[in-house]
């Protein structure tokens, strides 16, 4: 074991010596000031009699398992500092998100690196420890001598998370700013993984994570959750924040989520939304939950049936919103009635000059908004569909059901 390592459990209770080698007190707490340096311990809090004294990082001459020697004796009494992340109070035993392992873990101990620098000896946070080895250290902390504990833990393999992947969950937005807590690596995670993490947290933690993600990632994450978890998260949020997230969700998912809420909450959230999205959503919510209408999405590509292939491709290219919906084009006559579908593959291979009507799949599959889910899944299964147009009683296209909706449907039904 490298001598330059020190655990938080070992640091706590270490004697602090003044210049003449007399004991001033013992270490009670270590704090980072992330705005200054996210890894270096900035303050050591020393219990001396009834009061706590503060040792600044550059007052430390040496640190070892035997104690801390100081370079000067001008210690100030501790007073609470909002910019401090106190490791024992704020980190130990609390939950953090491990962005690398993609899970929520509970901190048992912290590992530091002791670095001898020009004017002082610094402690730098290396990793956060979880698992059996750190539990052993905690159990014997202050009971057995530090060197014995090191020997005892030898045979157990360590289980640690590198500090750069650790995300502290801080519910208070002001404190998040002061502590400079930015989501480390969370944005790079897949929404489905984020959703699993969010599910593991309590309401405060959920809000904190979603707030840190920004509404777009938050919406994607929310879409991956169970409808009842979605509902409980949205209900606990301020209406305007919930609205911002709902606006980023795809309309069918947004409508489903809103339908799970109590009516007053739904109304409050809709109140906060922009008119266009609001009317789209209220329309979707008209449909009964167990019908094709309740399942459909209103984001789809529809074009007049006489559009030529060239025009169609151009219009898809110039419309950035169409990227997600572009699995098929729905053809409409002048009364907005559904007359056919063209898959993207066919479109790409066709001559630019011919009208879309001639490429339409035969026969045309569509479903009436009032049909139930069972019929929807039957059709997807029987005809191997990727998407299916939903029509109203006048045969007008009002929405689309895609294969992923059907997969979620089958999964939740289980």
């Amino acid at each position, binding site marked *: 074991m490298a001598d330059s390592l020190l655990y938080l459990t070992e640091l706590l209770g270490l004697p602090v010596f003044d210049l003449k080698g007399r004991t001033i007190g013992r270490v009670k707490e270590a704090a980072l000031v992330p705005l200054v340096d996210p890894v270096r311990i900035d303050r050591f809090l020393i219990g001396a009699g009834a009061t706590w004294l503060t040792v600044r990082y550059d007052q430390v001459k040496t640190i070892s398992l035997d104690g801390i020697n100081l370079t000067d004796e001008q210690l100030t009494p501790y007073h609470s500092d909002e910019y401090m992340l106190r490791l024992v109070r704020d980190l130990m*035993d609390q939950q953090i998100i491990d962005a690398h392992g993609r899970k929520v873990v509970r901190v*048992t101990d912290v590992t530091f690196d002791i670095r001898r620098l020009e004017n002082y000896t610094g402690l730098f946070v290396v990793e956060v420890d979880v698992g059996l080895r750190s539990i052993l250290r*905690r159990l014997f902390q202050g009971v057995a001598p530090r060197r014995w504990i090191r020997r005892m833990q030898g045979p157990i393999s360590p289980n640690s998370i590198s500090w750069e992947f650790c995300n502290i969950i801080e519910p208070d937005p002001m404190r998040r700013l002061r502590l400079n807590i930015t989501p480390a690596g969370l944005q790079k995670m897949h929404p489905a993984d984020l959703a699993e993490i969010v599910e593991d947290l*309590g*309401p405060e933690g*959920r809000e904190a994570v979603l707030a840190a993600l920004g509404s777009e990632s938050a919406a994607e994450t929310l879409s991956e959750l169970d409808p*009842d978890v979605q509902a409980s998260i949205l209900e*606990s949020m301020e209406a305007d924040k919930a609205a911002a997230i709902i606006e980023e969700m795809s309309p069918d998912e947004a409508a489903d989520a809103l339908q799970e809420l109590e009516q007053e909450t739904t109304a409050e959230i809709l109140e906060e939304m922009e008119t266009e999205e609001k009317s789209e959503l209220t329309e979707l919510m008209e449909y009964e939950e167990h019908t094709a209408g309740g399942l459909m999405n209103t984001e789809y590509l529809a074009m007049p049936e006489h559009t030529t292939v060239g025009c169609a491709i151009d219009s898809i290219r110039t419309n950035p919103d169409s990227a997600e919906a572009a699995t098929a084009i729905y053809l409409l006559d002048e009364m907005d009635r559904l007359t056919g579908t063209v898959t993207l593959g066919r479109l790409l291979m066709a001559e630019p000059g011919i009208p879309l009507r001639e490429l339409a799949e035969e026969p045309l599959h569509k479903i009436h908004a009032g049909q139930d889910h069972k019929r929807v899944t039957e059709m997807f299964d029987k005809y191997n569909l990727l998407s299916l147009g939903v029509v109203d009683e006048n045969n007008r296209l009002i929405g689309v059901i895609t294969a992923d909706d059907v997969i979620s449907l089958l999964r939740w039904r289980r």
Partner: protein
Amino acid sequence: MLRRLRYHIAVFLSVIGPGFITAVVDNDAGGIFTYSQAGAKYGYLPLWTLAPITLLLIVTQEMCSRMGAVTGKGLSDLIREEFGLRTTFFMMALLVLANLTNVMANFAGIASSLELFHVSRYFSVPLAALLVWVLIVRSSYARIEKIFLAACSLYICYVVSGILVKPDWKEAAIYSVRPVLLFEPGYLTMLIGMVGTSVAPWMQFYLQAAVVEKGITAKDYAESRIEVIVGCIVMSVIAFFIIVACAGAIWSVEPRDITDATDAASALRPFGRYAFLLFSAGLFNASLFAASILPLSTSYTVCEGLGFESGVNRTFSEAPIFYGLFTFLIVVGGGVVLIPGFPLVKMILLSQVINGALLPLILGYMIVLVNKKRLMKEWTNSALYNVVAWAAVIVMSGLTVALVGISVRRLAGLN
């Protein structure tokens, strides 16, 4: 208005589960024996205790489910966050010990209830253990909960068998509301036993975790509270019928001590095949139910408190300690029942001692936690509720400690 009512009914149905299951499993093999014993020896006299027991149960259960709903965290999580790892570790160690012996008692219940039907324990216990293991490992929380709720409904067996025995309903009604205190050691021991077994440490952990797992939030809490209360009442209704059945079948013929719950079941034979059948089926169901829920709850609690991966939706390699502990509890809990001459009674008494030592601690921590404004916001206890809660804890702890004393004396007597 109607829509609102419909919404509330829908919410109530969606929160059903945790409180109900926890309260009902409380009548496990040990509980059934305690109540049967009370009815067999003292007839209708002990019935009055059920009302205060229900109240005590409601007070403790309500706080747990409230904490779960508001914080979204399990009790072991909260204890870890607020009181540190060492406290949590020792609490978990005691809990594992207590629950292990509890699991043994319930596998013994499975064995003896099926032996009434001439099924060898060497056949029934391994099969039940396998069934429990597969059931839990192979299904999701939602499905497990449905199965558990179905098991709850099978407790109706006791109600029917109680009715079939044709007890003296007038007596039963009178003594349900008329407290009778006899100052003889046997009677007092029985009273203490009834109260002491009614709240077990594992229940607090299970209930809170189940509330969290189900996604019940502070907003649904009104309905969840009703569910907890209804669950506790159902539990004592079942206890009522067990006592009444034994009072009618055994005490009215000749008051005596029974050796175990199957002894009570056999005594029901003269009252028709069904009375006997239902009573023993009820015992089997209760034991199997508790034998499934206890290992599961223990593994969850321990892993969450100590920060190991947990959950039935993780694989064995992702959560080795969770599955390891779960399997250990089932294999050892079931295994010892098959060892001839294993001191099972001693183990059960020991489990009562550990439970008794643990319970006051846990209830104390619970009240401290539930009063933390930082955690509970506006959902802390009111001053009056705190008086009631502390009183409940003190009464409960006092009686459990008394039960510990009795168990220790019996343990010493066994040597």
